[in-house]
């Protein structure tokens, strides 16, 4: 008898639970998503001219210095350095003294960097000539985020 009653009560409870489970509406009208983006350090350089003319006087000696101007855009502190190599048809050994200009923080900057060109081992018979040296603006080493320094190199083609 007790067992039957227990079964009846269990049945009643189950029915009650089923009755309570009548479908209820759901309103989940908003979803949120976390988004991330990584910005890399970078530096772009543009030169005012794409070439310079270098005139060597007769005999051994240094070429006159030339200024190379341009604009640098960077989101990290950067500096400009300059280098140059000898034109293919030029005599002697050419070296350039890089000059660096420090740029603070990030932004858009004008720069004028000095290219001091030194020529050695010219032949005694050299009577002087003018050479055209091509230039390009080149972004150099940009270090990993947080390092805070970018190097921009002005180099010949």
């Amino acid at each position, binding site marked *: 008898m007790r067992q039957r009653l227990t079964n009846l009560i269990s049945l009643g409870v189950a029915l009650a639970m089923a009755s309570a489970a009548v479908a209820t509406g759901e309103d989940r009208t*908003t979803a949120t998503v976390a*988004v*991330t*983006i990584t910005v890399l350090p*970078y530096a*772009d350089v543009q030169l005012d001219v794409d070439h310079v003319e270098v005139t060597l006087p007769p005999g051994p000696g240094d070429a006159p210095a030339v200024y190379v101007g341009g604009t640098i855009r960077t989101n990290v502190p950067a500096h400009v350095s300059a280098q140059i190599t000898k034109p293919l048809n030029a005599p002697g050994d050419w070296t350039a003294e890089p000059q660096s200009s420090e740029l603070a923080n990030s932004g858009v900057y004008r720069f004028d960097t000095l290219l001091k060109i030194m020529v050695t081992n010219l032949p005694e018979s050299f009577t002087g000539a003018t050479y055209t040296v091509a230039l390009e603006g080149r972004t150099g080493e940009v270090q990993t985020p947080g390092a805070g320094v970018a190097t921009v190199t002005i180099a010949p083609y």
Partner: protein
Amino acid sequence: MTATRQSCRLAAVAIAAILSLGVTAQRACALPVIERYVQVTATPETLDLGTAPGQGDFDSPSELTVKVAANCATGGVVASVSALQMTGGGSIGPERVFVKLPLTGNYVAMTNPVVVTPPTNPGTFNIVLKFRVQTTIADAPGQYVGTVTITVAPPT
């Protein structure tokens, strides 16, 4: 004897409860109530937009899939974004985040919440959203974090 009486009372209570539930169930069957149902989900839960190599417009290759299920008409799906903040300072405001409209393919600035779908009928549908981020030289390198919120608007 007492036990038998208690058992009878218990049985009577149980039967009454069952009958009562039966009546409730009958009423529920007689007057079915289908409540409003709207559900929106977006995957993935964290969207990596990628790496912006320099200043300018960066079209993220990542996609956000939005699934909407509703048994009623809706006012459409609206997307908004918070400012993307970088640890240690710096942020990319919503005006520099763009969402690509699925229907036109145009990118729209998320300065204000953007309606990405027109009002919809009952049913289920998926939309895929893509994003564009505009970076400038003033944006220091690093990782920026924000939140995109997708909302199903009520019908007008």
